[in-house]
Structure formats: C-alpha cells, structure tokens
C-alpha cells in the first residue's frame, strides 16, 4: 500500500540526487530528468488506479499510528493532482531538452526541477498540516532556485519579490499552524477534522481559518495578494515559467480546498462567503490585468490569477456540483496554462521577442504553431467543445442552481474578457505581419529542437481536445472526488482507523 504514496515523492528526489551526482555539464542529467519524470508518471497512474479502485489509501510513516506520526494519504483529489503534476512534469522535462542552456544545466537546473516536483507531490499527498508546511518550504526554495538560476537582472528582480512575498506566506502558515495546534493539540488533518468540532470557542476557529486563508491565498495568488506572480513569472526560462504556471499556485488552491473542506467547515456562512468575494475580485482584477499587458507571458501570468478565481469560486459555493467544477477546472487549467507558456516560448524562438508589439506573422508562416496555440487559448477562453468550456459550464451552472447570480454573471463576463485578451495575443503574434517583415518559420529550429519543443505542446493540446470531446470520464472522476471532499468520513476513517 504505502509504496503508492511514497513513490511519487521518492522518485523525483532520487532523480534529483542522481542528477546532482553527475559531473556538471554532462548531458546525462537531462535524460535522467526525463526518465525520472516518466517513472513519476507511471507511479502517479498506478496511484490513481489504486485510489479509484480502493478508495482513500493511507501510509503511516515510520509505522507510528495517526495522529502521532505523519500520515501520507491520497483521496481522488490528491491522486489526480499527483497525476497531473506528473504529466506536466514530463512534458516540461522534455521541453527543457531544447529550452534550458548548458550553463543553467551545469548550475543544477535538473536537480532543482526534480526537487520541485517532489515538493509538489509531497504537498498533495501529506495528511499532516505541519508536514504540508515542510513540503511548501521544499517547493519554495526549489522554485526560488529555478527562478534566479543563471539569472540576469530581471530574473533576480522578479525572484526577490517572489521569495519575499512567499516567505510572508510561509510565516503566516506557520503561525496559523501554531494557533491551530494551540486550539486542538493535533497536526493530523483527519484528526483536526474531528478536533476542530470540539473546540468550544467556535469563533476562534473561524479566526484561525482566516489566517490560513491569507497564508494560502498568497500561495494561490488571489486578490489582493497576487503581486508576486505577475512580478516574476515572465522572467525565467520558458520551461520554468511553464511548470510554475501549471503547478505552483495550484498547490495553494489545493491547500485551500483541503483545509476548507476537511477542517474549516464549521462556519461556512462566514468563511466560504468571504472566499466567494475573494473569488469574484480575483477573477476580475486578474483578467483586467491581462487586458492591460503587452507581453505574451505577462498576459498569461495575469490570466493565471483570474482563473484561480474560478477555482476558488467552486470551493466557495461548496455544493457538490461546484466542487466538481473546481476539481475539473484545476485539472483543465494546469494542462492548458502550462501549454500556453510552452507555446509562448516557441513563439519567442521564432519571432525573437515576447513583446506583442515586436512580433507577428506566425499565422502565415507557422500554421502548426497557430493551431497548437489556438487549442489551449480557446480552451482557456471557455470556447466549446474544449475542456475550458465544461469547466466554466459546471461552475456557472452550480452558481445558477443555488441562485448565486452575481458570481455567475461575474464568471461569464470575465470569460468574455478572457476571450478579449487571448484574441489580442492571437491577433498580434499570429495574424499581424511581423513588424520587421520577416517570416518566422519553423525551420529556424533544427529538427531535434523542434521535436523537443513541439511534442509536449502537441500532447497537451491533444489532451485538452480529448477532455473537451469526451468529458464524461473526467466529470465522473471529479464527481467522486467532490463527494469525498464534501463528506470526509471515508478520509477520516482511512487515516485514523476506528480510533475515535
């Protein structure tokens, strides 16, 4: 049993160590990274299958019974997140073959990358709130390393803002854990589920919940705490932006979903109403930010913020359908967003810039790239029948079903503004002729580079189309995952046994 849970952490860490042991500059490192990511994917698939078949699975680290030791636990949400991490991890590892220069490799790029994957998987799999903090730290330090690696001035400037604001989050998270421990005397999340209900000062639990909301809100980049994200995501190499864009904020969203479905559900009228307001404001400010940008990656960065709002909206509405929407949105968004960053990298290679004013002509001379952009871009904008449409549909229906008309209207209008800013990228980078009059053709890249860059993009685009055309298995999966979130009995019993 426990191997299913430990392998997704052990494989990337072992890969990291193996890579670090290579002589610097050796090409073996990058292939080790691809191989490790591939193994991670296999382990993740096994994990999903296991959880799908047997329900929540648990591993008690060091065989210390919960709640005394640390528990690793996977329900369907955790398993799905690990799987999607592995998919994006592999895609970006392949992309990195052609994107990361030898200097960055020598400085330890692949090691940091694999540690990052381990941190992300750890965060998804732990059942202990302090252990979650530890994995957050692993992620933070590895991502900071990647962000500034081999850096120029812009990278360092972004990196400093990134680390400073994320450290605030870390400190708040730790303080929150301290407060929660003071109230309940336990760190095990399943145990917290029970313990929080026995706290006499129920109001105080709400206060601590808000503490966590701010801490995870920074990580998830919600309004008004998202500054670090648009300040930094456009600076590092594309492979790094892509993995960040796909995964990092989503760990914050995951953490919010986890604690606000498992632990802090005693005053939904307050906490989740607050979350709903945050969700709406995040959607709006994010998409307006995107509309104001003129850089390919900057537009995409602000869109992340906006779309985090949709996921939080699903959590905040807290109905079965809304949670289905949140889970579905998470998975859809990670694939699409990472892919768009990957496309931006190819566009940059062909046209010479990320600045929309300085590029163009891709529609005419690189039609394949145009299609590969259009699929995730339209999906992001919620155009049917792509994955983003179903994600949006689920959330809008969920809100209309309970008469939450304001947030439904917000979600729809923001969807339109998303179309606006995605078509801006399309019209500028693809339709408009290149201002320098050059034709940015694919053959500018040699064949191996082209393969490494386009293969992951095409695979992710195909996945987007597949989810769009055949959403049923994904919706059914999300439904079961949402069911587990709304009724954590199985989760708690799996972790604690029948102790209490």
């Amino acid at each position, binding site marked *: 049993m426990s191997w299913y849970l430990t392998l997704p952490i052990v494989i990337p860490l072992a890969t990291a160590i193996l890579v670090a042991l290579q002589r610097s500059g050796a090409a073996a490192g990058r292939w080790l990274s691809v191989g490790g990511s591939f193994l991670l994917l296999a382990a993740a698939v096994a994990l999903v299958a296991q959880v799908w078949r047997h329900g929540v699975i648990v591993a008690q680290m060091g065989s210390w019974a919960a709640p*005394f030791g640390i528990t690793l636990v996977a329900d369907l949400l955790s398993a799905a997140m690990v799987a999607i991490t592995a998919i994006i991890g592999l895609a970006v590892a392949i992309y990195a073959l052609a994107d990361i220069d030898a200097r960055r490799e020598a*400085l330890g790029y692949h090691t940091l990358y694999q540690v990052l994957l381990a941190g992300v998987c750890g965060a998804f799999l732990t059942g202990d709130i302090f252990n979650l903090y530890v994995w957050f730290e692993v992620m933070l330090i590895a991502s900071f390393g990647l962000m500034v690696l081999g850096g120029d001035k812009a990278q360092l400037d972004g990196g400093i803002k990134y680390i400073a604001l994320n450290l605030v989050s870390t400190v708040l998270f730790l303080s929150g854990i301290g407060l929660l421990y003071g109230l309940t005397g336990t760190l095990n999340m399943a145990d917290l589920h029970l313990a929080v209900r026995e706290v006499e000062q129920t109001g105080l639990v709400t206060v601590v919940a808000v503490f966590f909301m701010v801490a995870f809100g920074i990580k998830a980049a919600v309004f008004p705490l998202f500054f670090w994200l648009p*300040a930094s995501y456009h600076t590092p190499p594309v492979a790094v932006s892509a993995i960040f864009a796909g995964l990092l904020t989503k760990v914050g969203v995951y953490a919010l979903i986890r604690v606000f479905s498992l632990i802090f559900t005693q005053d939904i009228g*307050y906490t989740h109403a607050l979350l709903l307001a945050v969700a709406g404001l995040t959607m709006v400010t994010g998409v307006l*930010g995107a*509309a104001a940008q003129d850089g390919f990656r900057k537009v995409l960065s602000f869109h992340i913020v906006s779309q985090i709002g949709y996921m939080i909206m699903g959590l905040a509405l807290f109905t079965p359908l809304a949670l289905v929407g949140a889970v579905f949105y998470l998975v859809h968004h990670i694939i699409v967003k990472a892919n768009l960053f990957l496309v931006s990298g190819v566009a940059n290679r062909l046209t010479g810039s990320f600045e929309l004013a300085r590029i163009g002509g891709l529609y005419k001379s690189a039609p394949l790239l145009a299609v590969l952009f259009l699929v995730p871009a339209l999906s992001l904008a919620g155009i049917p029948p792509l994955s983003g449409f179903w994600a949006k549909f689920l959330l809008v229906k969920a809100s*209309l079903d309970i008469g939450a008309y304001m947030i439904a209207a917000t979600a729809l209008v923001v969807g339109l503004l998303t179309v606006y800013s995605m078509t801006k990228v399309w019209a500028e980078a693809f339709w408009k002729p290149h201002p320098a009059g050059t034709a940015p053709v694919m053959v500018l890249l040699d064949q191996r580079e082209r393969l490494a860059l386009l293969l992951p993009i095409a695979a992710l685009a195909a996945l987007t189309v597949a989810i769009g055309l055949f959403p049923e298995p994904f919706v059914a999966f999300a439904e079961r995952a949402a069911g587990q979130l709304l009724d954590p009995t199985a989760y708690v019993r799996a972790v604690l046994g029948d102790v209490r």
Partner: protein
Amino acid sequence: MIGLRGSGRETRAEHAQEGSGTKAWIGWPSFLLPAALLILFASWLPAIAAGERLHFALAWIPSLGVNLSFLVDGLSLTFALLITGTGAVVALYSGTYLAGHPHFARFYLYLGLFMVAMLGLVLADDLITLFVFWELTTVASYLLIGFDHASAKARRSALQALLLTGAGGLALLAGLILLATAAGSFELSEILASGDAVREHGLYLPILVLVLLGAFTKSAQVPFHFWLPNAMAAPTPVSAYLHSATMVKAGIYLMARMHPVLSGTDAWIWTLTIAGATTAVLASVIALRQTDLKLALAYTTVMALGTLTMFLGAEATVAIAAAVTFLIVHALYKAALFLIVGILDHQTGTREADQLGGLARAMPISACIAAAAGLSMAGFPPFLGFIGKELKYEGALAIASEPLLVATAAVLANALMVALAGIVALRPFLGNRRQTPRAPREAPIRLWIGPAFLAALGLSFGVAPALIADTLVQPAVTAILGRPETVKLALWHGINIPLLLSALTLALGLAIYARHRRLRAALAGLESRLPTTADQAWDGLLDGLRSLAAAQTRLLQSGVLRRYLLLTFATLALAVGTTLFAVDAVRLPRLWPELLVKEWAALGLVSAGALLAATTQSRLTAICALGVVGVGVALLFLMFGAPDVAITQLLVETLFVVLVAVVMLRLPRLQPDHGSARGGRLRDAGVAVLVGAVVTLVLLAVVDGPIDRSVTAYFEQASVPEAFGRNIVNVILVDFRALDTFGEIAVVAVAALAALALIRGGGLRRARS
C-alpha cells in the same frame, strides 16, 4: 461608415502573385459533401411534412444529463436545407473566386467547420449541444472575418464580431441553463412539450432577456447591428454564406425554436416587435446611403433580420407563415446577389455603385441572374419575393396587438427594398458603360452557376408555390407554433388590402429609386450629425476598458516590493482583525499580567531589539538587534523549561548574527531614506503595529482556552519504550516526525545549491552593476 471597397481586389492581387493553386482539389469535396447532405435532407421532406420527427441521441455527459442529441422537425429541416444548399453553392463559387489564394485550404477548413457547426446548431435537441455549436459558429465567423489577416481593419472587425456575439453567447448560456432548470430538462423535445411551465416560472423574465440577448446579438438587431456591416471584411462568399444566408439567422432560428415556450407574453411581443421594426426601418434607410454594393447588401440583410424578428413576435399563423416564407425568399435572393456583387468585383475590379454601369452587354448571364434575384427582392410577381411580401402584409394586418406599427414598418422597409434592388441588381448592368479598373468579361461558369441556381429557385417557387408550401413552410410553421397548422401559398389572392399595399410599396419604391442619389447625399449629411451606429461607441467602450485595466494594474501591480508587502500585511490585519470582532472572539486578559521581573526583562529585551531593528539605518545594527530578539526568545524558552531548545536557539542566533554581519561588512552602506519617505514610514509603522496587535489578540484568545495534550502525552509515554530515546524533542525530530526532518534537510541542501548557483552564475554581481 468604414470603407471596405476593393478588399476583394487586394486579396486577389496577392494571390495572383503567389498562387499556383496546388490545393484546388479541396474545393470539390467541399462542394460535394453539402450537396450530398442537401439531397439527404431533401429526402426526409415527405416524412417531416407528414408530421414525423426524427431524433438521434448519444449520451455525452450522462453525469450532468447532457446529451449529444439531434431533432429534425419542420423548422430544423428548413434551416438544414438552407445551410447545405447555400453551402454547396458557396463552396463551388469559392473554388474559382479564391483560386490560388495562399490560404485556400484554410478557407475551406473554416468553411467546413462553420457548416458543421451551423448544422449542429439547428439540428440540436439538447440545449448544451445547441450552445456548443452556437459558439463554434462564432469562432468560425471570427476566423473567416479575419481571413485577410494582414489587414488591421479585418482584425478589428473579426474581434468586434467575436466579442459582441460572444457576449450574447454568454448571456445565452446563462439563459439556457436557467431554462433547463425551469423546464426540468436539457432536451428541447421535452422543453417544447412543457406547455406553460416556463412562462409561469419565476425565472421566465430573466430567461427571456438572456436568450433574446443571445439572439439579438447574433442576428444583428439594433443596437447590436453594427458588427454585421463590419463583418463584410470577410471574402464575399463568406459574407454571402455566414453573414447573410445562415449564421446571422441563428438568432432567428433560436427565437423560432423557443416560440412555443417563450412567446405570447407582453414582454415577448413588444420586445420582438419594437426591436424588429426599428431594425428593419433603420437598416433599410442606412442601406440606401451606401455606395459600396456589398455594404448596401449587408444593411439589407440587417433589414431582413429585423423583419423576421418582428414577425416572430406575433402569434398569428399567417404572421409566422410570412416569417418562414420570407426566410426562404431572403436566403435565395440575398445569397445570389452577394455572389453577383462578388462576380462584379472579381471581373471589373470594383464594387462601387458609381463606377458600375451598362455591364449587361459584357456580362449578360450575370445580368439575368441579378435581375431575377433583384426582382424577387423587390417583390415583383411571379417571384417568390412577391408571395413573401403579400404574406407579410397579410400577417401584419393579422397581428392583434399592433397591426398599424408592423404594417407601416413593413411597407416602409419594403419600399426601400425595391429601391435598393434597383441600385444593386439593375443599375450596374443598365445605362451607360462606365470606366472600370478592369475590362469586364463574363464570369466563368463556376462563378455564375451557383447564383443562377438560387435565382432560378426563387422564380420556380414563385410560379409553383405548392413546391414549398406543404413540404417546407407548413411543417416549419407547425414547429414554430407548436400546434398543427395549414398554410396555403398563392400568387393571386384577389384584390385585397395586401395587394393595395403592394402597389403602394412599388410606387413608393420606384419614387425613392428615382431620387436615390439626392437622398443618399441628404442621408450622408444626416449621418454625420446623427449617430446611426454604435461603431464609435464600441471603440470608446474598448478604450475605456483598456484604460480601466491599465489604471487598475498601475494601482495594484506597481512594481514596488515595499508596497506589495504593505498591502499583503494590511490584508492580513484587516481580514483577521475584522473576523476577530465579527465572530466576537476577542478575549482580553487582566490588564497587567502577573509576571516575574525576569520575565519582564526578557520581554523588554525582545521589544527593544525589534524596535531597534525596525528603526535603525545601519544594516549591522539591525542584524545585531535581531540577535538581541533571538536571545530574548531563548531566555523565555529557558524560563519555561525547555533548556535544549533554548541552547539551539542561542547557537543559531549567534551563528546567524556572525555570518550575516560578515557578509554585511562587504556591502555598501544603506542610503538613508530622506524626506519623501517620512509619510511612507509612518504608514508602514501603522500597518506593522496593526498586524502586531491583531496577531497578539488572536494569540491571547487561543491561549485563553484549554490545550489538548493527548498527542504530547503519547510522545512522553512512547518515547522510551517504543522509540528508544530519552530526549523527546530528538525522538520527535528523527522518529515520530522524521519525514518533516527529511524535508527540511532537502530544503537546506537545495538552499545551498541555489546559493551556489547564484554565486557561480554571477547573477548577484551582474545585478548590482
């Protein structure tokens, strides 16, 4: 009005150079497929006319009750025939019109995508299926309007159409979801059978408004009409197909489809009648003002859409029959005329009304086709247009609530149609020959055969209206009204009021035609003073959006880390602080806690250190002050019985101060903040104090309650017998919670790696320089 003249020419000039036409074969399957579908659909006519309904369904998302399901009844079949029929004609035509264009294959790809989407839209039974295809037509339209992608004007028009119809689409989505809620199903076949359930539902009005927003934007009703003339940036076959014959009718289809469920209320009747009448009259007046033939046709399309909307507002059988007949009439003559204008543009190099004249001799076949289509448009017998017009008047008079308004609007609009038919279809071919950019030649057969086919249909259906009366019109009317209806079409109805109105229309129309140049000049003068279109307002809206976005981003994403930190901490203080009071969790202890002197001393040490660190201008002092804080905390650990933790804390603090101080010595002195920062510092101090106060209040409230020590108790009890360690802290670190320690080791290792990379990468040095 933006001038689009000659855009077809430019496209052609471009592909004349590059064109080799290697992919010309693509045109043929693109023609044969819709032609085959046309035959298939036509073969269903008898069954549908007999009252059958065909239904196909596949489970798509059973978890949500969404199916991929299709329904063929009189209404959807009529539309399907129009789509495949004009689709085949346009595909055939484009093969020559765009021959050799570098994006020839893409054109057919988008055209095919559109045709599939449009068919899916009209045949869908499931509301979500309908919506999926609805949005796909919008996307295909976007790609086709922007087909001439190097032109900024085409890009603007494409975006405008996308955003406007996209906005309507989102409203529609909400409307359809609410409709499904009210009717209890996503399936149209069930919703249509639900009787008055929706009309009596509390959500009826929002449903109606949202659905109509979708329909009005798509079908270019005032005030959303302006995107359609701009969409003429697309190649002419596209304009003929999407922006005249089919896609813009999607809104009409939707209103017809929803007629049994939503119609009959005052809201429905008045909204549709007024919007439709306004659109019809306004659009036909603006049409008169155009000199570009294609633009004139675009506005007559808007007029037709307005007329259709107006009649769909009614309940009377004859009014609905008028709508259906006019739908067919319009599709036939308008597509033909668009294609003729395309031929003129293609063969002479211009489509400006004033540059064309006397072409009948050079282009006799085109002239005949234009005449046939034009006469149908003007409503002369024995063309189908005449029957359509008579029915319109009959229908207008049969409308119970506002016959006068509808009839007046219809007469006015029709009279203008007569004049416009003269301008578009006759004038280019009659009168004196004028100098055209290219010497005119008759078009090749692949260009004229399609419009000829459409025009011929207009004539045959007029001569023998029975061909469509029972097979098309009656089943469609039955489907729209949701009850069995009989419809009779005939050229001659005897002398009655509609006939008199027809005569009036013709007289009025000819009068307008005779004076159209003077009228055009007058209208041009009027237009410069009166806004007849929201086109400029649209730019204003987008500009407003952009400046709002820019202002908001400047405010929030200022680029200054200090402000980010300030906002983050302020958010914390505000969120947690208000919650503290909102849930009434504030627990204040007695004013002066009874502390020992040594405890006061430690407290003082910590406070003084923190204050000094925050206020000093020297890095070294700040580091040392932080060290003082650490020592104070270590003292507290010591006093409360944790000497081992205290020792660790002291060691770490000492190392930290020494190491950092060494580094700091190598850094340049801090530039002291001057004047301007004073207010900023006060503000920072305020937020810092607020955060401190809030956190203190939370902490006080938490320690006020009891602490559950069961986990700690377990550690104390299990440490020696089970984990074989006497130092509980150590046992926790390396055994009970070893995974945490493992993770932290990774953190330290990676931190070292990152630092090494920064140093070796020379990033720090470069950043400083």
